[in-house]
């Protein structure tokens, strides 16, 4: 079961005259709202006004915790990467799957690939690496 987040963190990246990057981290109390909203962006711009360096980019970050996670049943064997037109998925697989050649791993996770292709936001499946 996943907890709703209680804050969204924003990391703003500032670049100085030497090219070094420094970070400003602010957090905004919120419910299920992912975007770097107006309030946080405004706070970053207020901070940028107090800095000699340039604001170049920012990330919005939300973390949701699980409560009572189900106990693990085995070991992670390796990570495989599924490449789609509009997405990349890194998937850890168990020890049994990890010993198989890639085409057999592909067969084992076919259902997951089919589900991902059905969702419009992944695009066509291109391959497994």
């Amino acid at each position: 079961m996943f907890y709703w987040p209680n804050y969204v963190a924003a990391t703003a990246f500032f670049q100085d005259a030497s090219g070094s990057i420094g970070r400003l981290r602010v957090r905004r109390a919120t419910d299920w709202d992912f975007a770097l909203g107006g309030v946080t962006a405004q706070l970053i711009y207020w901070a940028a006004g107090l800095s000699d360096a340039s604001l170049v980019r920012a990330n919005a970050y939300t973390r949701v915790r699980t409560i009572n996670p189900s106990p693990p049943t085995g070991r992670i064997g390796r990570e495989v990467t599924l490449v789609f037109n509009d997405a990349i998925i890194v998937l850890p697989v168990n020890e049994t799957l990890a010993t198989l050649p890639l085409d057999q791993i592909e067969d084992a996770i076919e259902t997951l690939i089919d589900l991902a292709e059905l969702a419009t936001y992944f695009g066509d499946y291109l391959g497994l690496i």
Partner: protein
Amino acid sequence: MALVFQNIATITIPLVDETGSSSQFQLNLQVANLAALPSIIAAIIGAVPGIEALSSASATGLSITLPYREDDVTPPRAGSRVERRGVWDLINVRGNRFSISIPSIRTDLVDSNGYIIRSNPLVVAFEQYLTASTACDSRGVEIGGIVDAREVYRRSTRTSRPPIRG
């Protein structure tokens, strides 16, 4: 001058196996607009039991990272250094201390003792916005007040240094 969403979302699910080893399921996804994101997250949460079954590990959470880029970058002032930080020591409404720090604090905002000049109108405006906003600490507890503000030097890390060009 605006932070523009780059239409990419990185969704990460940390997984822990029975030996305590950790790995993560990670998905980099093009997102046409943020309105689509809640339904995507719901679909991914729905897929978590399947991911757990494939990896024999347990999901411990889920994180979403959205990158933004400033569309009108002003050049940094000559002599600016990100190691020279303005640090605001804050107290949350439960009485715990935490801080927020601004890289390369303007030198005209720091007095000869190294304290931020909190009577400066720019600083006053920033602090008013900070305390009136919903800014909070890492536990999601809102700001109760400002304790102190001063200049602090922090050394560069390898990742924060500029590349050496030959």
